[in-house]
């Protein structure tokens, strides 16, 4: 009975959301309530998930496992941020500055590291994936479009060549659109299956 109830509930919610998307003009008075409910639900689930995360790390500290130090850092930094937010309020400019001053450099360094790793991966591409038609065409096209992205079309004095190169630089966009259409079709079928209760990712069956 319960799985069938779950499927019916998800179908009803799915159709309501779809109706909200297509009939916005008619449903405007009700949409803020629906949105508030979703925000409340998300916030509550996030709090519960954070509590689970903290409990897991506290258990690790209690056991004295190999990653105890990292768990202590996480619990202490979470505690400081949480208490700071409660005392000063999340809108407090000093508090926001304090949090951002730690978070932004960390994110920036991760980005920098990603750029280095990506460059190394490009160099090791043939070693990792082997020399085949896919890797060769990937390597050559990546290099070619990297050059095109650097605006080399300006080096040529001929306006015809410039127009030709500018059109050629649109080719990756066509590929990206093709991939997006594929993703769209895949998503559409999964959505239809979930909507009709054929697919139940939330269920144990």
């Amino acid at each position, binding site marked *: 009975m319960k799985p069938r109830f779950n499927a019916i509930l998800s179908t009803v919610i799915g159709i309501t959301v779809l109706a909200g998307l*297509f009939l916005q003009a008619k449903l405007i008075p009700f949409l803020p309530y629906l949105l508030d409910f979703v925000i409340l639900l998300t916030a509550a689930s*996030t709090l519960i998930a954070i509590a689970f995360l903290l409990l897991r790390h506290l258990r690790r500290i209690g056991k004295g496992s190999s990653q105890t130090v990292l768990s202590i850092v996480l619990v202490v930094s979470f505690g400081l941020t949480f208490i700071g937010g409660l005392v000063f309020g999340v809108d407090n400019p000093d508090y926001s500055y304090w949090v951002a001053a730690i978070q932004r450099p960390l994110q920036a360094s991760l980005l920098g590291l990603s750029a280095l790793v990506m460059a190394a991966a490009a160099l090791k591409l043939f070693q990792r994936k082997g020399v085949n038609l896919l890797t060769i065409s990937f390597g050559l096209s990546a290099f070619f479009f990297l050059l095109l992205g650097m605006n080399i079309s300006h080096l040529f004095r001929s306006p015809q060549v410039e127009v030709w190169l500018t059109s050629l630089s649109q080719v990756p966009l066509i590929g990206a659109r093709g991939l997006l259409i594929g993703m769209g079709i895949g998503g559409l*079928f999964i959505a239809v299956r979930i909507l009709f209760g054929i697919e139940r*990712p939330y269920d144990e069956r």
Partner: protein
Amino acid sequence: MPLLTMNDLLALLIVLIAALILALVTLFARSSSRIDMRLPASAMAVDSLLQRSAESGGRILMNFGSGFAQSAELSSLVGLNLQRVILRRSFNADQPAMAGVGEGSLALLSQQLSYTLYTNALIPEGPHAENTGLSGLGPMGNLAGLLNSVPEAKNAGMIMHGSFCPEGLLALDLASQFALETISAASDITAQAAFWPMASHSALGEDYFASVFSDRPARSVTAVLKAADWLRILFCIGLLAAAILKVMGEF
């Protein structure tokens, strides 16, 4: 303001055509006695990773991305199917699979799924609360949590399935340093491009959705794949017709 714009009508039409094709193909697949369709490479890679991890006695580390944190996209929910497949097949494994998520509601759904599966399977030592749940909040928090889990000695392989930022390749790079087999399936095409050179197996485009089909009943799987093929053909015809009309100056 009109109730339904042209775009809305087109979207509705596409949904109806997709539902119709799926219904027809499913109906036809039931009467068919022979199934000769190969699963996509990513689905087969998941299967072989599960077999190898069972043989080596290692653990599969899963991460389902930042969930609904960035956008309320349905694709994040698909990872739960993969979690179900992997947990079912690792009930009797030496090391239970571990799943991490970067967002609250998906983390709770993942935990609930794990709990129900272990309870229904009557496994006395499960469910393991340590093995599923939030690994960090947001894309970067999730990545930080994942980076901590990768070096653990009991890991045999890693699967990244869901909504990821391209920086997720750091986790793949770390996994390759520990000789872990990795499968990536990102819902974002930038992340797909970034993960492809790093991962042992990478799902591109709509393979993202097919990678969760590893142990599904063959007829249901082939019905979806065949329906997707038919819709793709229709899309190609539509795009071609639109291009011809555009060249002819019709619109």
